[in-house]
């Protein structure tokens, strides 16, 4: 069994699938990063992904253009995040509860909306056709490198965009005034406000960015990954993204690596469950177990670091 597994894992195709599976988690994880940098926990990512995934399909079907679909999904994501912001920041609903509400809409509300718009139940079935899927691109030069080409080339445009966003997010957070403000608001809202930063505005902006990213993640899921929308599609990826954010110490690059770890776990799950004599159910739990373990390791290492820093501090004092 093990060598069977090894032989499937050591193929280019497997690493290709890791990258493909990572992309939607990475989008949402970056959304979690930017929100948490501004001091907001966006637990609604899961629901935002579900709803924007649905609208991605609907918009692309109505206009027969994948680009409109993706942009529509992004705008829906932004609107949902702003709605969360309105309730959390203006009406002082606990942001976690606002997030849970968005997740409820994502779980059942989407089925309702789908029926309302199309009369279909549970999935979009025939709405998606190959010409409105997010197109894939072959990268010149790289695609001709023997093994690397098979792994890195031929992904969907949005996959590349996800990894590009890691870099853009870093630039935004650390090289722009807006990023400085976002971090300042997250670190100490009162201090930021005392130097004239509009805390509310920054939080709204961070939430909107977070919603836009989750919207991309949703579009990726329905318009490329599963080629259509169905009700169990996102399956906790929004929650996993929160874990990726925590494990990546809230930084874009860290979140990318932990997203890749979860992508790897998911890809393993699909490979292993195809093997003889393996319980597909136990294997399905792998990504979630990995997430918990990852959080534990991260939390334990943080505590160690804090203790060490404290010990050094007291030594220095003495």
């Amino acid at each position, binding site marked *: 069994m093990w060598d069977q597994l090894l032989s499937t894992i050591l193929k280019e195709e497997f690493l290709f699938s890791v990258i493909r599976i990572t992309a939607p988690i990475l989008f949402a994880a970056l959304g979690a990063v930017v929100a948490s940098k501004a001091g907001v*926990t966006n*637990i609604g990512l899961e629901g935002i992904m579900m709803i924007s995934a649905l609208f991605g399909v609907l918009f692309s079907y109505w206009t027969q253009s994948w680009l409109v679909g993706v942009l529509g999904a992004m705008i829906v994501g932004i609107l949902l995040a702003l709605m969360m912001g309105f*309730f959390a920041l*203006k*009406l*002082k*609903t*606990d942001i*976690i*509860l*606002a997030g*849970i*509400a*968005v997740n*409820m*809409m994502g*779980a*059942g*509300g989407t*089925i*309702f909306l789908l*029926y*309302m718009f199309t009369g279909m*139940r549970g999935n979009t079935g025939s709405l998606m056709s190959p010409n409105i899927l997010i197109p894939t691109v072959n990268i010149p030069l790289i695609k001709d490198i023997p093994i690397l080409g098979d792994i890195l080339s031929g992904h969907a445009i949005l996959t590349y965009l996800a990894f590009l966003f890691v870099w853009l997010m870093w630039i935004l957070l650390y090289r722009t005034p807006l990023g400085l403000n976002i971090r300042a608001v997250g670190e100490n809202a009162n201090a930021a406000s005392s130097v004239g930063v509009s805390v509310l505005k920054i939080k709204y902006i961070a939430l909107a960015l977070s919603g836009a990213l989750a919207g991309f993640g949703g579009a990726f899921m329905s318009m490329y990954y599963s080629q259509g929308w169905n009700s169990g599609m996102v399956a*906790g990826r929004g*929650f*996993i993204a*929160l*874990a990726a954010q*925590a494990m990546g110490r809230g930084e874009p690059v860290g979140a990318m690596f932990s997203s890749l770890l979860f992508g790897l776990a998911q890809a393993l799950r699909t490979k292993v469950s195809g093997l003889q004599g393996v*319980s597909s*159910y*136990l294997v*399905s*739990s792998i990504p*979630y*177990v990995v*997430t*918990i373990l990852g*959080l*534990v390791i*991260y*939390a*334990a290492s*943080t*505590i160690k670091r804090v203790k060490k820093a404290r010990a050094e501090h007291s030594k220095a004092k003495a």
Partner: protein
Amino acid sequence: MKDKRMLGFELVRGAAAILLALAVGTIFIFLSSDEPFTALRYLLIGPLISIKGGLASFNTQGFYTILAAMIPTIFTGLAVCVMFSSNQFNLAGEGVVLTGGFVAALAGIYLHMNSGLHAVVCILIAAVIGGIIMLVPALLKVKLGASEMVTSLMLNYVCMYIVLHYLNFVFADRSKGSTQTFPFAETARIGSLVPGGSKLSWGFVAALVFVVIVALFMYRTRWGYAIRMIGINESFSKYSGMKVGGTIVLSQVIGGMLAGIGGSVEVLGRYSTFLWKELPGYGWTGVTIAILAKNNPLLVPLAAFFIAYLNKGCQLMATYCDVPSEMIDIIQAAIFLFFAAEQFLAGYRQKIVVKNTRADLAKVAAGAEGGAE
């Protein structure tokens, strides 16, 4: 008198939030249905009043159905009340309900005992398992500072897949077409409360008993007090000498036990074999109920009734009209958002506070004048 006015305000506010949520629902009904008024009728009065040939009559069977639907959600509502009271957003209720129901079913199938005792033992086992599961997010939070929200969400999926694994590969009754266990022993089943094949079991009485027990625990014991204080101000509790970590773990374990009991009572009272194949959703409903009850155990049955009523209404709407039953999620989400909104109608509250203060000042002034004379 001041308190009375504020209580009145809270009632008005709650009612306004619910009305707004229903208004949102109504808008969606009008957008999606060809016969919106019939749909609305089913949603609002359908659950309890059946209309046949122009005659309205009280639907007793429908009433029992609603009460039966309250059984698991009262338990999960109580569980969330206790867990959220210590300001821990533990959302593993879903997974615990499923696992609790499953282990109770197994105990009901494979243990042999007297009737009466058997069901109690099954429920106790579910409670213990539920408590143990909740130890995971609680200990990770207290010992390592890992977000209980994320770990508990992940735990739901882990629970689900483990239960499905055992259900499918170990304990499945292969003679049946669908995946299910063998039937429970007669001794383990929870009997029906009313004659006539209704699903309303003695579990309903048990749920109400637990409402009283949890209310007493939260408001009449020092542990309950500590849990609530930690929820209000953790640092203050810590500096005043409370064992914060231990209390947080206690509250999560109690929540887990309640959710486990809920799952087991539901399974043993409603079914004759275990056949859940996905997370049943009672955990999330429990969160809504706890929010509606403002974490007060005594208000949980009321909130559970309201949600069960709405749920039934949505089902009727889906059966007899062209509105999908998932409408309930949109209404619930809207209730959630408005009900939990502290600043919702804050202007109105401000007016009450100002009025009260003016009245008080006038009284004080009158008193001072009286004193001067």
